[in-house]
Every structure is written in structure tokens, then in C-alpha cells.
């Protein structure tokens, strides 16, 4: 058995989500290869070669793959899967993986299992459906199994200790269907939401974007990431990349502090696997209290500054 994993990276750094996906591949068993497709991404391949459990790194370094456009990368992955005899193709269930992998599956004429949270056997997996209100056990009937992996469900393998070989892949697929125009990438010194140990999130109750500074102060003391509800994003308080939930990021930190968030099912879907949940809300009937380990009924504009000064 052999698994091909699409490495998540930005041409210079291998993203941690890759390590959780390798863990899922290790649970399946067999050889694990990582594909690094990008431009000027030798450094990523070198990091990938260190990852525990990986036996081979395939490096496709070409301008056509620079922005990892699905139109160009999907045919490369499909070709590798067929010619190099991979039984599984995996990617993290990030926006990059979600964008790319269904295109690969369709080129291979197979289905895709999205967002798996457990490996039951070589062909059977668990995945959440209906915003996590049900967990389906699904068996794949396809010869090549194409799967995206929910990072929070698998403990990452070690980033170091491996010694995989790096092989160059020279095939170039340039579909010339799409072009990269630009991006607005949020720059932050705080940890990434999906890998943070502590997260403090704000909702509509924050009132405006400036008030998120209250949360940032607490975050800096706790080494936490700052998240948000969809309502806070829609109201323009904060950018979309901070959204936690069914249609945003799925997180499972050690500590999740929800401030001024009511606890809609779509929000809970993204954070209810956190180890410890704290809710601060002035409405004691708010549904968030039903999942909170520690609930504080209080006005956030008093409670959060007090929390800040007592840390």
C-alpha cells in the first residue's frame, strides 16, 4: 500500500497541517510519500524529508505550480497517482486541500471522502456530517481512495527525525485556464488558529473591530490565537480568515474562550472538540453555556479587562 500526500506550504515553509495528514496516512499503513508542488520550493522539500514516517518526497518545482492553481496541480497529482501506483491520495482539509482534491478525484473517476476524523480500516473512515451533529462511517468502494483529513482529529507526527529521499518530478501541466492576480494575507505574530494551544474568539457582542483589541491583549498573555464568529466577520469587525465554524476553520485547542458568542450550531461545529471551553456572555440562556466547561454570565466589557489584569 502507498499513500501520496499533498504537502501544504507557501513555497518556503511546510505547514503543520501536513503533519496531521501524515498521521492519518500512518494510521492507514504502508509507504508515505509527500508531494511538494510549487515554485522555488526546495526548502519545503528539505523540511518534508525530515518528517517522521515519510519515505519519499516528490518535488515538482515549476512556475506552473507557483500558486498551486487547481487547474495545473490536479492533473499532476492524478498522473502521479496512476503512474506511480498510489492507493491513497490525501490532503489536509484546508482551503487549499478542499480546492484541489475533488478536482483530482474527478480526473481519476473516483469519489472523495471529505474531512475524515478516524481511520477504521483500509477502506472505512469516519466523517462528520450535518455540522458535526452526526458522525458517518463510510466505506470507499474505489480503487484509489481520495481523502481530505481534518487536522484536529489526528495528532501530528514529529516534524523531524525522518530521512526521506527527495525526487524531482519534471512533468509540467500548465492548463492556462486561470491566473493568480493577488492576495491579501493577514500578517500576525500570534499562532495560527488551527494549531494554537489557546484560542480566544469574539462574536457580535464585541460591538466593533476596535474592541477586538481587548481580546488581543489577553491573547498575548496566553500565547493564544484570536478567532471570531461568522457574525463578527459579516459585520466587518475582523477578516474572514479568523472565522471558526462549520464553514470556517475547525479548531480543537486545549482552551477555547468564547466571548460575546451565542453558540449557534454552525459555530459549535468548529470548536466543540476543544478540551476546555470557557464562555463569557451576558445572556445566561445563551446556548454556548450548554457546551462550556466554565461559564461566566457577565458583561464582556467588564469581564475581559478584568481577565486581562488578573493574568
Amino acid at each position, binding site marked *: 500500500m502507498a499513500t501520496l500526500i499533498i504537502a501544504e506550504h507557501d513555497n518556503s515553509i511546510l505547514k503543520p497541517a501536513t503533519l496531521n495528514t501524515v498521521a492519518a496516512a500512518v494510521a492507514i499503513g504502508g509507504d508515505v510519500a509527500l508531494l511538494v508542488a510549487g515554485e522555488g520550493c526546495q526548502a519545503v522539500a528539505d523540511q518534508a524529508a525530515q518528517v517522521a514516517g515519510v519515505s519519499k518526497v516528490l518535488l515538482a518545482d515549476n512556475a506552473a505550480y507557483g500558486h498551486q492553481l*487547481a*487547474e495545473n496541480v490536479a492533473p499532476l497529482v492524478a498522473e502521479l497517482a496512476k503512474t506511480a501506483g498510489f492507493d491513497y491520495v490525501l490532503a489536509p482539509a*484546508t*482551503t*487549499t486541500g478542499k*480546492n*484541489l*482534491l*475533488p*478536482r483530482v*478525484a*474527478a*480526473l481519476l473517476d*473516483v*469519489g*472523495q*471522502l*471529505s474531512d475524515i476524523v478516524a481511520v477504521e480500516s483500509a477502506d472505512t473512515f469516519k466523517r462528520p*456530517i*450535518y455540522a*458535526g451533529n*452526526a*458522525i*458517518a462511517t463510510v*466505506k470507499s*468502494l474505489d480503487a484509489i481512495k481520495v481523502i481530505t483529513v481534518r487536522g484536529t482529529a489526528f495528532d501530528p507526527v514529529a516534524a523531524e527525525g525522518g530521512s526521506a529521499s527527495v525526487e524531482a518530478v519534471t512533468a509540467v501541466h500548465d*492548463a*492556462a*485556464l*486561470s491566473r*493568480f*492576480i493577488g*492576495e491579501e*494575507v*493577514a500578517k500576525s505574530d500570534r499562532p495560527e488558529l*488551527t494549531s494554537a494551544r*489557546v484560542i480566544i474568539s469574539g462574536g457580535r457582542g464585541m460591538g466593533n473591530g476596535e474592541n477586538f483589541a481587548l481580546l488581543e491583549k489577553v491573547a498575548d498573555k*496566553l500565547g493564544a490565537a484570536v478567532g471570531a464568529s461568522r457574525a463578527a466577520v*459579516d459585520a466587518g469587525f475582523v477578516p*474572514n*480568515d479568523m472565522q471558526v465554524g462549520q464553514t470556517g*476553520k475547525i479548531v480543537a485547542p486545549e*482552551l477555547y474562550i468564547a466571548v460575546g458568542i451565542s453558540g449557534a*450550531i454552525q459555530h459549535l461545529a468548529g470548536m*466543540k472538540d476543544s*478540551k*476546555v*471551553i*470557557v464562555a463569557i456572555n451576558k445572556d445566561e440562556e445563551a446556548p454556548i*453555556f450548554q*457546551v462550556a*466547561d*466554565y*461559564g*461566566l*454570565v*457577565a458583561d464582556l466589557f467588564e469581564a475581559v479587562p478584568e*481577565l486581562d489584569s*488578573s*493574568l
Partner: protein
Amino acid sequence: MKIMVTVKRVLDYNVKVRVKADRSDVDLANVKMALNPFCEIAVEEAVRLREAGVATEVIVVSIGPKAVQEQIRTALALGADRGIHIETQSSPESLSVAKLLAKVVADEQPGLVILGKQAIDSDNNQTGQMLAALTGLSQGTFASEVKIEGDEALVTREVDGGLQTLGLKLPAIVTTDLRLNEPRYASLPNIMKAKKKPLEVKTPADLGVELRAHTELLSVEPPAERKGGIKVGSVAELVEKLKNEAKVI
């Protein structure tokens, strides 16, 4: 140009589903069904492009049992011009849906196809990307802005790191994110008018597509329940608990 939009019938997003006692599936008997929220946004975007004179016609497609015609009528009431219902017994898997849609694309030759980014029942997030692969067209997933300029669609995408803008050669496949627009409500006169708009029914056989299962659903279980916790009386008590009881700070 024509725009094709797809709509899926799903349970209403306010409904909390329960798993059947025999754990064979979720229980959808008597629950309120609705248009998938992301599909509603797709319809709105297409109608706005027609209203802006960019598109000439909006065709809405749904796949599933007869009941999905209700969602096609909703889309027609929101402003789509005509409907195509591809009748199947159950809602087929994403790849099958994409194969059926690819045939409709070949027949109708739309300049743009807009789908929801994900259906809130299966949460798959696959169909648009699969359709793009099968038709060999460009794809712009998780769109929060779509502009047509010349022979390109400029699509701003909501990605993990922030926002990304791509130029897609037309015809293109776009999937919607929540912030793309705020769908209108259907007015009563428009709901009445929708009843008279054309709705064509086809079968997979008419389209020459044979449906094949790629997955088998073995069982469905409820998620692990979280035990309700406690209420603390003050910030000081909260900090004390987090330090000494939960030991997370």
C-alpha cells in the same frame, strides 16, 4: 451569456438533526427542508449579473427526487428564468451529481456556472471542483466577489490565510461563500410568476449518464456529547479554575 446555477434541497439550517435509533442514517422524516444557503447565494449572484446586463438568462438545475422541484421553484421566484430537474430516486453522490451537471453544461453551454461551496447536509465541498475537472474548465472556489471583465471572471476567494484573487478564463465554474451577497426575499407576485416559468424534467438515462456508487454508508452515530459544565461567579474564580482545576493556563 447564460449562467447556470445549481440548487440542492437540504434540511433547514436551523434544524438540529437526530440520528435514527437503528443508526442507519439521520432522521429526515418531517423535518423542514430548504434551499441550501450557499445555493441561495449562487442564485442571487446569477440574478444580479443578469440584472446588471452581464448575463442574458439564468438556468437553475437540481438533482434528486420530485420534491427538489420545490427548491427549483424557490430559485425561479428569486429571479432565475427556467429550471431543469434531473430526477433520481435519492440525492446521488458528488461525482455523480458532477457527471450529470457536466452533461447539462455541454448541452446549454453556459458562460458561467455558480454552485454553493458546500451542501450543509453532507458538508462535502466537492461538486463544483469535480464539475470543473469533468468539463475541463477553470474554477474559483469559496468566492466572496465575482466580476466579469472581458473574457475573464475575476474571483476573490476566501482562503485560510485571507483573500486570494484569480483571473479565470470563461467559461468558468464558481462556488459561493457566505459573504458573496445577501440573497433577497421572494415577493408574493414573484412566487406566483415562478409557477409559470418553464421547468424541464430529465432522467440520467436521457443524459446518457450511468450512476455508480463510490461510497457505502455503513452507519451514522451521534457525536460524543459534551458534559455541561459549571457557572463561575467571578473572573477571579474563572482564573483560579483554569489554573488549578483544568490546568490549561
